[in-house]
């Protein structure tokens, strides 16, 4: 066995897994393309081509949204809670935020802050239902959040029609537009790009940092992670699991409440029937890809956003259905966890080696002393 610095070794192992996974996903996707008779080379050169500045902006924007979704899911995962309901939570929240911001009870930035808080509250409340049901009634959060997603759809549709304004000549309905002064300005990258990067990206980064700090540095985070690792040990250590379950769901829902806001404040300025849906499910995959680590989730979000963006012109330029990328994304999720698992087992073995060596050493000295004593 090599006597590498264990930290270095750990880092090497950590990198090995995703690289292995990406290569594997690349091969599997190529195989599918070959079997289907699609032009493999052209597909990859389109997908892996250097994105233009405006595409970079799009990638960053979509990654921001996916990142928040991944964070929301990850909060639950750290406590072994499986929040499938981010989808419903962010839609309820985005709708509430759009109404609040559209009504503009407060001027300018104050309006923005109020809307963001309202969104977080709404997301938290919607997730909280599942939290309470789980904590108090033992209802699996997997089932309750699935049901709540559908219920959110119906309720939001109902209330949207109640408050909607409709632009002349448009078949879309939406909430009132957010006044100019309450929008979150974006910024340009490079000089040629017409697409701006959402200003919300900084808030997303802040959310990521807060997530990291809260979970890894605070007592609350310790309690949350401990509960996730072993409910029974958590109870014995004095953590109220009921309370933690509800709080974790509230927190997850609050973050989920942010998911739609970059779109709302940076792009659409209202919530309507074309508001992007399905972001919660992407978040699950991204949280899993990033192993619930804020940096990992960011990488996962960027990877998914990159693949989505790059696949967009596939049909126009190469004549291949962009759905191939969904296969790639799913395969990546699978290969990543498989290679993490393989690498993890290997790591555990290394660790056991180390423990065993220490034990052997201990025994050797003990035997020596014994023999000395006899002599």
């Amino acid at each position: 066995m090599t006597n590498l610095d264990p930290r270095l070794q750990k880092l090497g192992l950590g990198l090995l897994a995703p690289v292995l996974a990406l290569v594997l996903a690349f091969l599997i996707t190529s195989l599918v393309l070959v079997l289907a008779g699609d032009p493999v080379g052209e597909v990859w050169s389109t997908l892996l081509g250097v994105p233009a500045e405006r595409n970079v902006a799009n990638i960053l924007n979509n990654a921001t949204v996916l990142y928040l979704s991944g964070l929301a899911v990850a909060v639950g995962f750290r406590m072994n809670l499986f929040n499938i309901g981010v989808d419903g939570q962010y839609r309820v929240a985005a709708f509430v935020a759009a109404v609040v911001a559209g009504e503009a009870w407060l001027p300018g930035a104050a309006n923005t802050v109020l809307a963001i808080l309202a969104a977080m509250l709404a997301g938290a409340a919607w997730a909280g239902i599942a939290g309470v049901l789980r904590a108090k009634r033992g209802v699996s959060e997997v089932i309750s959040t699935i049901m709540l997603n559908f219920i959110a759809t119906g309720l939001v549709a109902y209330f949207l029609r109640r408050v909607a304004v409709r632009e002349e000549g448009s078949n879309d309905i939406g909430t009132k537009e957010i006044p100019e002064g309450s929008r979150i300005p974006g910024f340009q990258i490079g000089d040629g790009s017409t697409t701006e990067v959402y200003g919300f990206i900084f808030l997303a980064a802040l959310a990521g940092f807060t997530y990291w700090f809260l979970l890894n540095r605070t007592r609350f985070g310790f309690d949350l992670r401990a509960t996730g690792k072993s409910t029974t040990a958590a109870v014995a250590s004095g953590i109220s699991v009921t309370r933690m379950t509800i709080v974790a769901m509230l927190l997850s829902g609050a973050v989920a409440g942010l998911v739609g806001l970059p779109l709302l404040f940076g792009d659409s300025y209202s919530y309507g029937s074309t508001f992007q849906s399905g972001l919660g499910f992407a978040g699950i995959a991204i949280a899993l890809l990033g192993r619930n680590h804020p940096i990992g989730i960011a990488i996962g979000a960027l990877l998914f956003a990159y693949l989505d963006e790059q696949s967009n012109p596939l049909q126009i330029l190469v004549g291949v259905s962009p759905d191939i990328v969904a296969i790639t994304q799913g395969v990546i999720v699978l290969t990543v966890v498989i290679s993490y698992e393989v690498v993890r087992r290997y790591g555990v073995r290394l660790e056991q080696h180390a423990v065993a060596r220490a034990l052997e050493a201990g025994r050797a000295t003990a035997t020596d002393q014994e023999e000395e004593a006899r002599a």
Partner: protein
Amino acid sequence: MSDVAPAVRLRGIGKRFPGVIANDDINIDVARGTIHAIVGENGAGKSTLMKILYGVQAPDSGTIEIGGTQVSLGSPADAIRHGVGMVFQHFQLADNFTVLENVVLGAEKLHGIGAAARAEIVRISDAYGLGVEPDQMVEDLGVGARQRVEILKVLYRGARVIILDEPTAVLVPQEVEELFANLRELKAEGLSVIFISHKLDEVLSVADEITVIRRGTTVATVDPSGTTSRELAELMVGSELPSPSTEASTVTDRVTLHVADLGLPGENRPLLDAISFDIHAGEVLGIAGVEGNGQAELVEAIMGMRPGATGTVRLAGQDLTELSTRRRREAGIGYIPEDRHRHGLLLDAPLWENRVLGHQTRKPWARRGLIDRGASRTDTQRIVEDYDVRTPGVDTLARALSGGNQQKLIVGREMSGDPILLIAAHPTRGVDVGAQAAIWGHIKEARRLGLAVLLISADLDELIGLSDRIEVILRGRLVGSFDPGQVTPEQLGSAMTGAGGAA
């Protein structure tokens, strides 16, 4: 004896795990119709050897002969086919299945899964006096009954060689006696029994032959009639057998823990019923009882982990009754849980995080809601040194430590919060003799310093040796108080099963 081939003959068995040599050149002969005991230190390789003989794990080297023919065992199915059966240390039963289902599983070819199988179970149960009912749910059974189901499973498959790995760790003396009676009956039928235990007195009383394993190798095979437990222990560890022994009383007149009228409702009968006692500073109160009679519930009720509990709990004058588990811990309770894997540790967290567990609100590693990793690491290092936890470092995952070392870490953690009350549930269960002695030492030391200790143990010698007073718990009630200086394990045992009265 020499004409007949032995029931089992192991020659040169070797097995290594990554970095560990679990077995190395093991040689054992088990004669037919005998009880053959195997003893050895924690981690000596006994279970590994038995798993090899039962086909769970494949040996790296060596040969196995059963009934005179050399066999190769690729899976438990192979072993079963060759007439080997095993009762594991941790019962291998599906709780949500009936006894019948548990028994016939994997052996459906013998008598099907219906009426014929039921009849066969009843027949075996009657023949050996096991008292097993086929249609009961296993979750409704007590420990002793579960063990009899395990034995019935083995017999049902027509095993001629029966392996029992630490079967007595959870039994009270009466149950142990019943078990031994069953074993002798099996022996009389010509079956061979391989029996593993850390309790050397038991081994001496029941075995016909004893093999000692040390660091994966057979060091001796002895005849119990010519050996003492002291000699056995020396063979095992190369040092003297330590024992828990009472020292001069340190009991003060200050009441540390006051429990009054503690109750806990259950489905059919109360799990705890009108329990009252005091523990003084410097006093060790032992609780004796057959597993499942409320000791776990008692501990959890005192810790505030049982929502429905009624009654009063006071710690040094402070009323804990309405407080949460965390508040109770903060008030000065140290807690060594019965099941370290479930309640004591985060197996997939590093040792320093495990150091924080249960002490999340204590300085210096927790300040203003934040966790100070540096401070925790330093203090974990201190425990590792003071309590002789064998580990490469404080960043090692708890899972990687052996049972004994995990336990030492827990003991170190719970002793270092300056508790005024220590609740120790089975503090030395499954722990090797060296670590056992160290843990006893720590408890005695703490008692000397004025700690109140609530000790729960299935090991009656430990209980008698360490306690200043022993209460017996039966069906959720305290049914008798004993002076450890006077009582024998047998007397305690009969009180625990409801057969005897208080002294």
